[in-house]
């Protein structure tokens, strides 16, 4: 491909031995992996909409895509490993590692004006990519959440004891909470079959545990008879595989002599998640398992992602794209909140579209002043969730994002900071409106690994 000048390749020093920065990223990745299982135990401070189905589907577009409205299917950069399109993995010059973390503040409000505020943080994804044949054949591995369950809500009530010996009313609260979700590990290859065509394929391993709980607790007075609380927990373990095939097409000189256009597509096959569900009653050592383990499966649909990006010159990246998935075809033999077997009511075909731009004042000038080498990003996106607790109302999310790609003192490394603000759902008809503010940060390091220096 002759368009290399537009690729902002910030190469590392080309040493065979990894730098301290790379070790730092590896340590960060290892730490995030180690912390994940423990943290998941208490991660209940997300959207109530994540209760339904297999949780809220997550969008991981990397440090660059998150800032431009998740429009990442056609992004073509030597600085980032595109997590959405295996076709883009063909063009890799350096070994790259990136890890992202997001912190979210969430404000939930209902039609009465009641509001609750929650905050939580989570690992947003890890990507590793390296070339086998430089800019010809590349490999990428990734770990990112596929869906997330994270909610906690309570309903208060009062009931009459019914006992003439205890004629008082008793208050109670039913708490509902959930955590966990499905994770995805992706690994695959990208190959440049033609100077303008790159294709790729990836195998996706899906796995995870979804915990849903319900507890009934009583507010009896000190002198009242004791009530025993009810603690019910359902743990569903799921696993399955799917595959993604991607392609990236590029054309130079579309609107001007030196511009550059890419178009990308990624198709993910439908998958069947096998699952086992255990329901238990009680707490800790007093926990009783109710019945036998329930086995079943969940069929999730295919997904098609499309995108286009336009590079007028080395300073600008304009991107747009989206994806669709026919979730009305979802079938599950395991009961899921909001899902009725054999009935697509409440299900929708998921749609996500977004667009945005990135502006890098320095373009390919690696010696420009530091502020000029900052990448400025802005984007918007909209999506429709695949499931809704109200069969007549789709849950839609509108989000705006802005961010910076900060160069660092380590050549080839960037720190991406992105801010997103969005609104999900509507505070009407028993639904709620989520207003979220998300700050994400990812570290992206590229170096030459696995290549013997030519000069000793």
């Amino acid at each position: 491909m002759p368009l290399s000048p537009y690729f902002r390749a910030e190469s590392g020093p080309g040493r065979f031995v990894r730098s301290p920065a790379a070790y730092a990223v590896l340590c960060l990745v290892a730490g995030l992996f180690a912390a994940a299982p423990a943290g998941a135990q208490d991660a209940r401070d997300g959207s109530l909409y994540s209760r339904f189905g297999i949780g809220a589907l997550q969008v991981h577009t990397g440090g660059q895509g998150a800032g431009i409205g998740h429009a990442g299917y056609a992004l073509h950069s030597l600085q980032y490993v595109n997590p959405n399109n295996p076709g883009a993995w063909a063009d890799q010059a350096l070994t790259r590692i990136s890890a992202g973390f997001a912190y979210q503040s969430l404000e939930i409000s209902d039609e009465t004006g009641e509001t609750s505020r929650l905050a939580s943080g989570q690992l947003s994804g890890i990507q590793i990519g390296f070339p086998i044949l430089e800019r010809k054949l590349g490999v990428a591995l990734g770990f990112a959440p596929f869906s997330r369950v994270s909610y906690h809500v309570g309903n208060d009530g009062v009931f009459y004891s019914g006992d003439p010996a205890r004629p008082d009313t008793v208050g109670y609260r039913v708490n509902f909470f959930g955590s966990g979700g499905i994770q995805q590990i992706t690994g695959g290859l990208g190959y440049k079959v033609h100077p303008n065509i790159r294709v790729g394929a990836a195998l996706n391993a899906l796995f995870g545990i979804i915990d849903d709980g319900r507890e009934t607790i009583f507010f009896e007075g000190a002198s009242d008879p004791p009530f025993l609380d009810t603690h019910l927990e359902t743990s569903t373990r799921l696993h399955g595989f799917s595959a993604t095939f991607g392609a990236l097409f590029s054309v130079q000189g579309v609107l001007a002599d030196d511009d550059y256009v890419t178009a990308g597509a990624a198709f993910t096959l439908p998958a069947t998640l096998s699952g086992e569900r255990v329901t238990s009653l009680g707490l800790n050592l007093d926990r009783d398992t109710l019945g036998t383990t329930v086995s079943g499966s969940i069929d999730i649909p295919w997904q098609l992602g499309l995108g286009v990006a336009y590079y007028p010159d080395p300073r600008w990246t304009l991107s747009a794209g989206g994806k669709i998935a026919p979730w009305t075809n979802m079938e599950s033999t395991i009961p899921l909140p909001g899902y009725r077997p054999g009935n697509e009511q409440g299900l929708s075909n998921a749609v996500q579209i977004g667009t945005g731009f990135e502006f890098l004042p320095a373009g390919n000038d690696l010696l420009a002043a530091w502020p000029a080498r900052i990448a400025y990003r802005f984007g918007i996106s909209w999506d429709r969730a695949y499931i809704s607790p109200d069969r007549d109302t789709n849950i839609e999310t509108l989000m705006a994002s802005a961010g910076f790609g900060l160069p660092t003192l380590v050549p080839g490394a960037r720190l991406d900071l992105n801010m997103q603000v969005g609104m999900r759902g509507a505070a009407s008809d028993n639904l709620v409106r989520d207003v979220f503010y998300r700050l994400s940060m990812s570290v992206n390091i590229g170096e030459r690994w696995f290549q013997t220096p030519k000069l000793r």
Partner: protein
Amino acid sequence: MGALLVACDDPANVGGDLLGAAGGEPVNAVEPLSALRAAEWTPSDRPARVLAGRVDDPALGQYEVQGYFDVTALTSEEFRAGVVESVELRLRRTYVYGDSTSTMQAALRQIDEAWEADDLSIGASFATGPVITEFAFLATDTLVVVPLPDAWVAEHDAALRNEDVGNLLHGFRIDPIAGNAVVGFGPQRSFLFASTGSDSLSHPLGRAYPFVSRAAPPAMPEGRFLMQAGIGPTPEFSLSVSSEVHAPGDPLSVNRASLTLWADTLTLRQNAPAHFERPLIRTLDLYARAPGDTSYVVLGRSTMDEEGRFVFEGPGLARMIEDRIAEDMIFELRMPNPVSLPTSLVSDNASYYYYYSSLNPVLLYDADADERTPAGFITLTPIY
């Protein structure tokens, strides 16, 4: 995916309506208990209080109680070296049921066979000899001294001074002759006192057992169940949770359960003449077993409240019902086992430790007593 930072403020119940009918709401169920049935109960750990007397209770009928008892054997070399000159029973009255102004007359007999107090069924009796002596006292007397005749003393001199006196003398029985009360003696500060002139021994009360016969049935209203401490019968009843509350096979969680039984204190109060003492059972233990099981577990204790109710509740009862809700659970009411009572109560003569050896009654409303029908109140949460 792992959440690494988790924070939460203002965890209000915003969005609860979003969940729809997600369950978890507790419901109440009122289940009538079965009719009370008389179950035989063999008390153990019976305190050695000697009950004896005859009473004509206007509400509960006529009783005659023969009091079997023995003494704890003691001996000494100096006592064995002498000749027993006198023997007398020194009995401390600790209980009265009936006319407290009554003059009591009783006869003392010697038990002629070996007997064990443990696991005696209600109605057991033992062979006795002729009357040793008769004695009289007032029901209000706190100390009754019964001298034994010289002939009996001379006849039993050797046995009384034998080291094996505990096996040679099997005890005594007090038979009522006249009076309108049942009294209880001991167990503390009541002795068989024997003297040789140079030495004396005070044998404390050992075992005791009351043989109760009813001369006239109780004249109580219909729909009542009479339970009397020490002699029973023990009320037994069952609880079956209806399918309206619990669909077979559907799991549930029992949040609270209580069983309420009502005592008819009015009937007893209206049929109590002047100076007629009739202490009531005021504390009961609830025992339970599953059908087919023979062993019981104790689930709770209840003391009658001001309205005459025994309310049994607690985690043990709730767990029992949760685990056995598909079965007919069988319950029994018993007097508290004195061994299980706090030391402070045991040391009190007026405590239930001694009521265990008494005729204290409680008149319970049985099934079909309208609002006082025994009933179970259950709060449960269906799981699905």
